[in-house]
């Protein structure tokens, strides 16, 4: 078991998430932000403004006028897309490194996070259940807990975790909880709390493997985004029962397995088309 108070202390000592991203997440969560508000918020963050303009201008065609202000970028790209990029800018420094405790090399956690975020964007319109605006952020950050968990994954602890998976026939999450008394979803929720992200983002991250106790559609949604991301990364022809999302979760989102089968190629195309945008932040 790991000392939970040590974990909490370390979570609270992590660098803060960029204030502009936190503020924008709050605005989007409220559901009533407008172009002016978003543009002003970005303008107060010069580094963010520079990044956003660079991305906006690289996406613009040669015939379009160059974008010179945050407001022009928001008008051209739309609030949703700007929001996604701002969150991605904030998240990338945290997620791009290697996470050896999970066999993730440099960039692997970031690529998976982007895949989940793109999956979230793509699948939301297909869900009968209304998906909250925090869905993208929760999907992008769903595995952030692995960063903190990684600090406690010595070779010895990893040995116990793998042994638990074998003996108990359980997944990694259950094995983490059995050996350490906590799993990476909970640690991710703790980090999101430290970062003062909206409550629903915290829920989506915490319950992205076991959505039922979260009692919020964002938990099922993040769970699904994670599954789709894993399938895209494994390749659409790769069949593994572990990658098949729970039928009950799909039902609660207003989807079924047949609909999902048709959706995977769309999600994969979208991932390959837009991942470059997020990788360039």
């Amino acid at each position: 078991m790991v000392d939970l108070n040590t974990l909490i202390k370390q979570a609270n000592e992590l660098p803060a998430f960029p204030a502009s991203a936190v503020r924008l997440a709050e605005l989007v969560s409220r559901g009533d932000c407008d172009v002016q508000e978003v543009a002003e918020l970005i303008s107060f963050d010069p580094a963010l403004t520079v990044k956003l303009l660079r991305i906006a201008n690289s996406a613009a065609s040669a015939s379009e006028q160059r974008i010179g202000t945050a407001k022009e970028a928001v008008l051209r790209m739309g609030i949703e897309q700007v929001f996604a990029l701002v969150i991605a800018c904030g998240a990338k420094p945290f997620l791009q490194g290697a996470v050896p405790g999970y066999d993730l090399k440099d960039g692997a956690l970031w690529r998976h996070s982007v895949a989940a975020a793109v999956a979230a964007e793509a699948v939301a319109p297909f869900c009968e259940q209304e998906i909250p605006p925090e869905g993208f952020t929760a999907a992008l950050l769903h595995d952030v807990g692995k960063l903190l968990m990684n600090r406690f994954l010595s070779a010895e602890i990893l040995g116990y975790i793998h042994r638990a998976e074998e003996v108990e026939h359980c997944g990694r999450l259950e094995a983490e909880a059995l050996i350490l008394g906590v799993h990476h979803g909970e640690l991710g929720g703790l980090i999101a709390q430290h970062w003062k992200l909206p409550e629903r983002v915290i829920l989506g991250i915490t319950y992205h493997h076991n959505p039922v106790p979260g009692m919020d559609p964002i938990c099922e949604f993040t769970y699904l985004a994670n599954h789709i991301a894993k399938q895209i990364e494994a390749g659409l022809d790769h069949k593994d029962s572990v990658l098949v999302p729970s039928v009950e979760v799909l039902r609660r989102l207003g989807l079924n397995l047949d609909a999902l089968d048709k959706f995977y190629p769309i999600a994969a195309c979208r991932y390959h088309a837009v991942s470059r945008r997020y990788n360039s932040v």
Partner: protein
Amino acid sequence: MTVVDFDYVRTFVRQQAAIVLEPGKEYLVESRLQTLARKENFPSVESLVQQLRQSPPNGMHRKMVDAMTTNETSFFRDLHPFAALRQSILPELLVRRAKERQVNFWCGAASSGQEVYSVLMTIQEHFPELLNWNFRFIATDLCAAVLARAQAGRYNQLEVNRGLPANLLVKYFTAKGVEWEFSPELRRRVEFSELNLIKDWPSLPSLDLVFLRNVLIYFDVETKKTILAKIRRLLRPGGILLLGGAETTLGLDEGFERIVFDKTTCYRLKP
């Protein structure tokens, strides 16, 4: 971990707490005792177990048993039993005991208190009048250390994140440094004491509601039967026993009848 050390630990834990550790669980014993060994400044699990084997049962043996006791718990664990409490069990109890206005509840594996306080919050939110009755809520556990924690009612951020809705956190808890403390007024309604389910029980009153959730799964069949028989003798007519979702009295004690409230299965005395 050596076979001899594992056998020693599993035998001792079984004798003291009736917890069954099958072969194959060596990894679990080692991982739990590793933490204890480090805390107690032993260089290894082997040296800790050697010390335990060479000395008569003492505080360190108690710590070993405590380390092997699974204390996984959360607020409003499994959700549906608390919905059943709210929608069916407590309303029925209020009618049944309306004349005498006395009820006794027992939580037989209170651990660090989350279940007990979840029940109290449910009562305070939906049936506060019950707290004006002659209301006793006895909470017991084998493990002295976690019982002390339950009595203190203090939880870290991870613990309050587990199952506690934000509105109830704000309403019933006060931030104390980096921890959250449960309402002292409600905490005072609980009588905490040690009780080892497999040993002689101290005197308990006749009971209207018994919570023994996700505990019997650790015991062998004979122990389960013994515990259920004791509960049956304490339960009042109309009183309810709540077990964990994967647990049942079926095949263990024929004195109970099964009743279902939506997703929650409960047990009461057969008429």
